[in-house]
């Protein structure tokens, strides 16, 4: 036994986040921790890594009872953690990040040459062939995630905690990560893995522990539990009905008259090749493709978050310049970024302030949204989107990912848009909230809203969209009509095809 946690309770004012949870992590196993948002996964991890003090219970690491009063305690006990959000220093080099605190010292202070050489070794262990002297910020989020993991390897941990490490990685990067995880497992490291991707959990883990509402639901070997049972145990009810959403893709779209949005040869050098796209009222157009295929880039160009150097955009048939978000907002186009924390929420403002921000921005600074209107917006969306906790005065950064996403949706819906661009709206949120967001998108489209829907989870794209544009290597490679029942495998085949591109 590498880690044994017994009867762990953690309380916050008014909330019992963990209630007498037992958890055991064995050496040489990959153990997944499962549960909806708010089930207590993060809290359990933070109790183990010394971020939160525990109110009762005991933690043993390698047979010795430990009390953690800070993350440094946990690290000295051999527990290394990689969080979902990259915790590295963007302005340092890759090598400095990897070796931070473990630099090789020479006769005159730090021996940088040796430090970088060691950094290179650690990076190559993860199959990362990058220059350790390059600045961290020059690498994609996915690579940064892998760098964060190699950092954990440097400290020679006995217990590795991976909290959603894969949420921003594409398939080949995930494979690379899994290879490293298996290697570490063979070296008898105990690995705690958290992910919202059930596929990955079944693929990589040996054992699963399920939490629900702060309590232990049970511990299972992966072979013991089929997927539907697993989901039922996580939710505490039968699988959420996705059938109603299932019909969305078959809805017939009237493609006469002017589309809400027509994009002609829109492109930007070094970002995406010129491509066309139409979205009609009531239509959900899915963008499918790997990370870096150009799907986010296209969305940002349409919205004006980045400036296109090529092509035109028509809204309701008239050519418009959407060169800044401001223009798009005026044309009732809304965009929800894939990076919720950096480009979505205003963390230190309240839920209500965040929700009204879109409307307020549109009105300009001089005309403050009247109190009555503000209350009406807040009440309406708190209820219709079931935002929890139902406290408009809570700071948004204290909400779970799923609820933050709903607040951001509310921010845009309150501006009464005609086109909604959603980039990865379901990333990093739990199964229940994912289904809710999808149902919402489907309902909005039924009421006549045009939607561009981007997701790495292809089954979501296939379930929701009437049309799917497949992107690969910054090109559009296919336009699929989803009424002919497109299969996820068809899309995968298109994405995977080694083309002339």
């Amino acid at each position, binding site marked *: 036994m590498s880690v044994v946690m017994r009867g762990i309770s953690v309380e*916050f*004012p008014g*909330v019992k*986040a963990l209630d007498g949870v037992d958890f055991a992590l064995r050496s040489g196993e990959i153990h997944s921790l499962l549960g909806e*948002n*708010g089930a*207590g*996964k*993060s*809290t359990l991890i933070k109790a183990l890594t010394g971020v*939160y003090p525990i109110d009762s219970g005991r933690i043993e690491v390698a047979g010795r009872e430990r009390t953690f009063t800070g993350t440094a305690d946990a690290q000295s006990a051999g527990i290394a953690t990689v969080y979902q959000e990259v915790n590295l220093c963007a302005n340092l080099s890759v090598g400095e990040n990897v070796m931070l605190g473990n630099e090789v010292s020479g006769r005159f202070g730090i021996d940088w040459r040796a430090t970088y050489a060691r950094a290179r070794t650690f990076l190559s262990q993860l199959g990362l062939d990058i220059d350790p002297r390059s600045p961290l910020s020059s690498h994609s989020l996915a690579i940064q995630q892998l760098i964060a993991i190699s950092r954990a390897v440097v400290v020679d941990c006995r217990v590795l905690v991976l909290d959603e490490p894969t949420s921003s990685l594409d398939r080949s990067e995930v494979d690379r990560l899994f290879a490293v995880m298996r290697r570490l497992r063979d070296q008898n490291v105990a690995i705690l893995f958290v992910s919202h991707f059930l596929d990955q959990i079944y693929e990589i883990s040996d054992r699963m522990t399920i939490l629900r509402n702060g309590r232990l639901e049970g511990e299972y070997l992966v072979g013991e539990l089929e997927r539907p049972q697993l989901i039922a145990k996580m939710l505490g009810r039968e699988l959420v009905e996705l059938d109603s959403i299932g019909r969305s893709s078959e809805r017939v779209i009237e493609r006469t008259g002017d589309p809400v949005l027509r994009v002609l040869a829109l492109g930007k050098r070094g970002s995406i090749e010129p491509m066309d796209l139409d979205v009609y009222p009531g239509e959900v157009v899915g963008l499918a493709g790997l990370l870096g295929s150009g799907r986010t880039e296209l969305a940002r160009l349409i*919205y004006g*978050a980045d400036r296109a150097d090529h092509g035109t955009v028509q809204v309701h048939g008239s050519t418009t310049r959407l060169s800044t*978000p*401001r223009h*798009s*907002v005026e044309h009732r186009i809304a*965009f929800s*970024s894939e990076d919720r924390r*950096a*480009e*979505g*929420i*205003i*963390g*230190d*403002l309240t839920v209500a*302030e965040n929700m009204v*921000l*879109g409307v*307020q*921005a*549109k*009105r*300009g*600074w*001089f*005309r*403050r*949204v009247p109190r009555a209107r503000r209350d009406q917006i807040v009440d309406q969306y708190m209820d219709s989107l079931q935002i929890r906790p139902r406290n408009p*005065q*809570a*700071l948004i*950064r*204290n909400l*779970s*990912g799923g609820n933050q996403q709903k607040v951001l949706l509310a*921010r845009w819906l309150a*501006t009464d848009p005609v086109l909604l661009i959603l980039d990865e709206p379901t990333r990093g949120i739990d199964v229940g909230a994912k289904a809710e967001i999808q149902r919402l998108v489907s309902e909005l489209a039924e009421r006549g809203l045009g939607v561009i829907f981007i997701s790495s989870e292809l089954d979501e794209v296939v379930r929701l969209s009437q049309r799917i544009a497949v992107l690969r290597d910054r090109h559009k490679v296919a336009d699929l009509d989803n009424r002919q029942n497109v299969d996820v495998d068809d899309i995968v085949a298109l994405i995977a095809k080694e083309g002339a591109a």
Partner: protein
Amino acid sequence: MRKLLKHRILWPIGALLALVLLNAVSRPSFLSITVRDGELYGSLIDILRNSAPLMLVALGMTLVIATRGIDLSVGAQMAISGAVALTIISDSKTPGSLGTVAVAILAGVAITFIFGLWNGFLVSVVGIQPIIATLVLMLAGRGIALLITGGFITTITSAPYAQMSQGYLIGFPFAFFVSLGAILVISLVVRRTALGVLTESVGINPEASRLAGVRSRGIVWSVYGVSGLLAGVAGILYSSNIMAADANNAGINIELDAILAVVLGGTSLAGGKFTLAGTVVGVFIIQTLTSTITFLGVPPAVTPVFKALVVIVVCLAQSRRVREWLSRIRPTRTPTTTTTTPVVERIPA
């Protein structure tokens, strides 16, 4: 919300009261206010009057800091507005007429407003870091002021202009009404319109604000304009006090006092949430401190040491960590009540 504000501003107010108390004990005359010809006199009244330039500058600084910026050029801008106003008055044939003085004041303030916009342009459009962008004018400003006055310290005699800082209105110093007016106007504009929340939003997360359709650029641009305008008014008050345009000494180091006042009031230099009430209290702390030190007979050159002490005490008192630590050594208090903020953060996903 109101509770939180109270909580944040509690420490600065405590520090101010402690200072006043210290003065009241060591010299009973401190609190006494006498009436002469219907005008009030006394140490407290002096503080109200003398704090006016710093108050104006610090209010502008609060807004700038809220957008993650800083304005180092305010002192130099004071010198410029004073130079412009006094040059106009001294060149005029009727330096004592109300019209001339009005034109002079408007011209001085207009010029610094334009300089403020220049700062804003460098920061929001060109994208230069605020500390560098405003450093340019901080260095050049006093030279510009000297150019305007032709290298001399222009002195004037003009009764209406003297009124600005030396005069009285219904018993109180006129300068006090100027700062009161600025406090009221800015508070109203910031809290009655959406300017306050949009400024905070830009300060907390510029990119998210831009994507939400907020005109971040316009907001950042205009706060520097406002800061310049207020510095201009402060320059008028300063030059009216000595009736001279002293380009080398007008508003010297006031940018540092202003930053200090903002921080003492509880606004973080990291930008985002700001409190105007806190800044007002911060200004009074600094002014009272200056007055205390003068009274105690400490040479003015040593004043910064005392300021530093107050800063340390107030900042420590505001520090979350220190407060947690204090609450731990006072076992009678339950830790949950004293560590509200971190606990809220801990509510799980």
